[in-house]
């Protein structure tokens, strides 16, 4: 595969910002894009090439990189996503998050595909990007404010220009590990503590105005043909119809939906089953969360539209309004045994306002609830909060305590791994994390989902390779059962590679392969990318680029941490304790079967089975000599041939 010139899609420049000196400058995007297309892959390349493995996440040298997908800014359906990369604050490995909305296209219209931020500012600042220019401005008026207040103040200050804001809230300022970067009030780059890194750099917001900027398409005729094919697939997709009716979380309104069997973990993972009456209480379309949906909106260029706007005009949470209720909101509620839909709407909006990653707060809260249940925390420890299962008031109060690091919130802000080590008394057994990062995922029943979460370069999150069934996740016509081990590694690898493609192009998973919309798939990505960029990739080529991108992330983790095979097992609880009730009672992750999945997964990746580390053979095959050299210098490259398949 050779890409000589890129003729469309890109804004053309990468913005560099050094917060320590206040300097900004730009470089061409194309030399990176020829090899790695765009978005996350380019972010990963810069991170790997420019960061010394000794760098800690809180060192000024750490980079925070925003990378907009290569097709964002065009009419490509679902193309709006921005990847955010940095060192992961939970483990100093690869940190990665992803966000939609309207910020990404605006950044490209303003002239930049990526923003690479280094250094630390002495005083709070925000970055203003407008018409191919960038400047740092003091952030006195917005430091300490919530993300909602920040957006409002900045909009006033920049009137009459239309701006887009990516900001952190009090949580990021206060270095709460699970802090996100919030765009358009409700779209969150949530994982890896990217908001915490931003706060550590004293960067309150990135503010962009694209105004008269533009993005070109190399071959318009071919592009519009590809768009029409893609839109037809969207129209014909069953998921798209359902999303329009009830949004993504609508799947949960049916108490018999397979989601309830496969995607939940109850009471901090004490069980993976939730009673029917509780399901109905929170998700029933007439009395549960859908009752409060006033409208729905879409991210930039999205033909599906999954973002509900809620307004509660009665009861204890009267006056609550805002966006956001997802599958994750349900997963979070179940985790805490909360059946109150109004309360969960309130909690999610509050998390966005405070700049918290809602999955993180759920995980630390559910660990704290279990500590309370076991008598390891008393009301004296919690500042009077009764951390009892289902107590929504306590959860909401805990969000505030976390964001402002008050009392128990200060203790929990470090995440459950370190909190449990500090507390001891057996609390490590039920501290749920992957590679140190808090995780709300189900592990014991859906084996492919668990494998995807456990092996993800971004520890413990579910967008990088999880699968629960061929009809929903994985290549078309794939056939396997979610609760079995067979064939799962194959689909996890496939899914992780298609996600690499989606993040290079900036296409949302909800119109892609992951959610089962099957609107777009790799053949569409190739047709769209070729026509927009004026390149000539085959589908095989694109899978190769995706493999390279995945290997950049793997190499980063290998060089920057001591992660290897031992770190790819589920949290202890899910290997040792069985599901207690429901149709899958008795399930757990059995070591022997898990080992077989890992063997196959590593083999498919071309990695060493014994250690999980990358091999010279497979990296050379991908043309990644530089990466092989770096790993070899660190003594972390496997030189032997990839072993034969054991089975």
């Amino acid at each position, binding site marked *: 595969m050779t890409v000589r010139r890129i003729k469309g899609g890109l804004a053309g420049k990468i913005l560099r910002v050094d917060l320590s000196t206040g300097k900004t400058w730009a470089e061409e995007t194309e030399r990176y894009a020829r090899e790695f297309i765009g978005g996350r892959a380019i972010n990963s390349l810069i991170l790997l090439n420019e960061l010394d493995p000794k760098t800690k996440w809180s060192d000024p040298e750490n980079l925070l990189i925003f990378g907009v997908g290569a097709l964002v*800014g*065009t*009419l490509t*359906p679902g193309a709006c996503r921005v990847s955010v990369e940095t060192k992961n604050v939970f483990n100093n490995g690869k940190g990665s998050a992803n966000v939609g909305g*309207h910020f990404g*296209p605006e950044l490209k*219209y303003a002239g930049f595909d990526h923003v690479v931020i280094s250094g630390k500012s002495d005083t709070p600042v925000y970055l203003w990007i407008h018409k191919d220019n960038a400047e740092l401005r003091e952030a006195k008026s917005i430091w300490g404010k919530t993300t*909602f207040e920040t*957006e*409002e103040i900045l909009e006033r200050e920049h009137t009459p220009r*239309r701006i887009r804001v990516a900001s952190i809230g009090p949580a990021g300022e206060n270095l709460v590990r699970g802090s996100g970067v919030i765009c*358009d*009030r*409700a779209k969150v780059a949530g994982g890896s503590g990217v908001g915490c890194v931003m706060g550590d750099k004293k960067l309150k917001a990135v503010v962009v105005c*694209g*105004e*008269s*900027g*533009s*993005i*070109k*398409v190399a071959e*318009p005729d071919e592009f519009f043909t590809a768009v029409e094919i893609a*839109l037809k697939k*969207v*129209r014909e997709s069953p998921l798209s119809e359902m999303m*329009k009716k009830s949004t993504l979380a609508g799947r949960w309104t049916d108490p018999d939906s397979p989601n309830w069997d496969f995607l939940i973990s109850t009471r901090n993972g004490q069980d993976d089953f939730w009673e029917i009456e509780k399901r109905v209480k929170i998700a029933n379309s007439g009395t549960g969360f859908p009752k409060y949906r*006033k*409208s*729905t*909106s*879409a*991210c*930039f*260029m*999205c*033909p599906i*539209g999954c973002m509900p*706007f809620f307004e509660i005009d009665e009861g204890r949470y009267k006056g609550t*309004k805002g*966006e956001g209720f997802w599958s994750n909101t349900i997963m979070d509620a179940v985790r805490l045994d909360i059946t109150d839909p109004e309360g969960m709407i309130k909690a999610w909006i509050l998390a966005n306002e405070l700049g918290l990653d809602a999955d993180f707060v759920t995980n630390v809260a559910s660990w704290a609830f279990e500590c309370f249940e076991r008598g390891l925390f008393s009301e004296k420890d919690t500042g009077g909060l009764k951390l009892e299962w289902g107590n929504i008031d306590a959860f909401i109060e805990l969000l505030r305590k976390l964001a402002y690091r008050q009392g128990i919130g200060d203790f929990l802000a470090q995440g459950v791994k370190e909190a449990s080590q500090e507390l001891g008394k057996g609390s490590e057994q039920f501290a749920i994390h992957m590679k140190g990062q808090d995780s709300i995922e189900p592990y014991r029943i859906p084996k492919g989902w668990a494998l995807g979460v456990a092996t993800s370069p971004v520890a413990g999150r579910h967008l990088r390779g999880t699968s629960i069934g061929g009809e929903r996740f994985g290549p078309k016509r794939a056939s396997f059962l979610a609760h079995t081990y067979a064939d799962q590694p194959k689909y996890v690898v496939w899914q992780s590679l298609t996600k690499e493609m989606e993040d290079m192009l900036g296409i949302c998973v909800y119109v892609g392969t992951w959610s089962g919309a099957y609107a777009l798939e790799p053949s569409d990505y190739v047709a769209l990318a070729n026509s927009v960029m004026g390149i000539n990739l085959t589908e095989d080529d694109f899978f190769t680029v995706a493999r390279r991108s995945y290997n950049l992330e793997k190499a980063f983790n290998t060089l920057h941490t001591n992660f290897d095979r031992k770190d790819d097992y589920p949290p202890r609880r899910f290997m040792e304790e069985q599901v207690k009730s429901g149709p899958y009672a008795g399930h757990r992750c059995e070591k022997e079967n898990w080992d077989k999945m890992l063997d196959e997964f590593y083999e498919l990746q071309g990695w060493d089975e014994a250690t999980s580390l990358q091999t010279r053979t497979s990296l050379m095959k991908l043309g990644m000599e530089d990466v092989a050299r770096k790993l070899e210098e660190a003594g972390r490259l496997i030189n032997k041939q990839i072993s034969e398949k054991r089975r």
Partner: protein
Amino acid sequence: MEILRDPKACYGCRACELICSFHHRGEFSPGGGAIKVRKDNRTGEISWRRGSICDFCEGERQLLCVKYCTYKALRVLREDS
């Protein structure tokens, strides 16, 4: 001729805004077309405005904003209809 938007059906994806700019400028530039879509993040309300540079897609076989609205929120009202 008039182009009408159904506010209840509109999701604010801005496909109309973007394709309109392509018609006028031959590239994607939301500032360069006749249509402006705005969403108030505080209320979720989406506003839609068509400016005077709209030429009803002169030279095209159909109105592009209507064609690319996947939410079927736009329709044409012709004087003779």
